[in-house]
């Protein structure tokens, strides 16, 4: 019952994911950003990217724990919206902040560990974004799923990026804790346990049929 009622709201993922961008645009146009507005734009594209990434790996556990099969279909939009914010974040860093001075940018990437892991997370995210369509899934077959397991490296890298750039580590540690719990819920032993608990006789394998997006 709860399944059906929640599924009706799944479309909200689109307006909600775009809301931070809309608010940022409004605040920029109305001059509500701080005097260090490049910093604001950097933060307000980075945080949504991280939130959406963490949410994208929450979908499968939501199915595992609560049996919300519809949540699995949200992985694609959440991942792609995250990629949108990551691109804007990177564009802010390279173009707005560093004026496309590639020498200076390369120095920063090599010197600052938080930029290094952030760049790594971005580079790993690119192939996932490029293959988030049915044609790529067909072409890659079994490898598609293997490729998309990269998200379990990307999210910890993104959390590490946030942790290493923060002067107060606590928010990043919360993201880290959430990521840790979500990764634990991927463990086969826990998945089976939850599955058995929720619906005796239900098979974890059934989820596999839902991966098509």
């Amino acid at each position, binding site marked *: 019952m709860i399944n059906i009622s929640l599924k009706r709201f799944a479309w909200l993922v689109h307006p909600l994911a775009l809301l931070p*961008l809309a608010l*940022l*645009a409004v605040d*920029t*146009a109305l*001059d509500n*950003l*701080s*005097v*260090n*507005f*490049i*910093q604001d*734009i950097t933060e307000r*594209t980075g945080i949504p990217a991280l939130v959406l990434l963490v949410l994208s790996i929450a979908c499968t556990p939501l199915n595992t724990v609560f049996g919300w099969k519809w949540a699995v279909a949200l992985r694609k939009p959440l991942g792609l919206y995250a990629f*949108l914010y990551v*691109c*804007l974040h990177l*564009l*802010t860093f390279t*173009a*707005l*902040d*560093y*004026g*496309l*001075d590639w020498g*200076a940018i390369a*120095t*920063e990437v090599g*010197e*600052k*560990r*938080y930029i290094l892991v952030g760049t790594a997370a971005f580079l790993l995210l690119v192939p996932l974004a490029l293959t988030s369509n049915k044609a790529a899934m067909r072409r890659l077959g079994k490898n598609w799923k293997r490729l998309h397991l990269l998200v379990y490296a990307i999210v910890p890298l993104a959390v590490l990026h946030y942790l*290493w*750039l923060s*002067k*107060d580590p*606590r928010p990043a540690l919360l993201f880290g804790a959430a990521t840790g719990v979500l990764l634990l819920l991927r463990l086969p032993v826990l998945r089976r346990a939850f599955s058995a608990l929720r619906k005796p006789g239900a098979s974890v394998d059934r989820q596999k049929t839902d991966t098509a997006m």
Partner: protein
Amino acid sequence: MNARRRTWPQIAASEITPEHIYRSRRQFLRAAGASIGAGLLVACAPSDGSSAAPTPAADATSRLPYGVGTVDELGKAANSFEQITTYNNYYEFSTGKEEVHTLASGFKTEPWTVAVDGLVGKPQSFDIDDLRTMFDQEERVYRLRCVEGWSMVIPWQGFALSKLLKAVEPSAAAKFVRFESVSRPEEMPGQNDIFSFQWPYVEALRLDEAMNDLALVVTGLYGKPLPAQNGAPLRLALPWKYGFKSAKAIVKITLTAEQPATFWTTANAAEYGFYGNVNPDVDHPRWSQRSERRIGELSRQRTLMFNGYESSVAALYQGMDLAVNY
């Protein structure tokens, strides 16, 4: 030493604040912000990332009447009163730079006394009102470089720290000066954060650094009394050092023989050294020290050794390895 750098003609407060310049800057920012917003929405790279930058500073400078102290000695326009008073670090209130302005609004700066003690011939307690009149007040336009990679140009008023120190007659054994900031958790929410730092805020200088002419005790900003969020009623301005060295809301100054432990060396010695000199060659794990973002400008600029005050302070550090003594 260049006298122009430090001392400006005494002028009326009303002459100091060219409000039209703040307004034109805010308009520039808004226009820039709006175009950036539009650029983001269509996900295209703003091509004016670096080329648009010189306009606000250049405009403001050219419009300034000669002699008004709102450019620094490099010709860079001072930041607006609004920029200076709405964006700064003050951990006693918050780790956020935009929150300080609001959180500090109820902070009581009167009455206030500053005790000067330790290895001095004449330990004394000064009332803030006396300090404002005891020494010649000067206007100094200083660059402020935050360790976080942003910077401002700020017209401070105050008096040379050396004058205060001479008044208490440092003894021969005195080698360091320790500055202690106020502890008032009931008015300063940041001091209630039990997981973060050891309060009160403490900063320190070598005595010869403190006696340098550039070291300023600040009591005013833009010809007005120093606002609470900027460290009222009494703070330091040490323009060749990162901002965190310039302690705010000082209640106690102690001369010592040993190098004092400071707030930041205690909290994170790997990232913050005792000296905190602006140095583009000494890296920080989170922030670029090679370049900086001048508030109100679009493109980054190179960070200068000792924040551009090398001729005044380099002699203090002769023979020292600044990569070790950061």
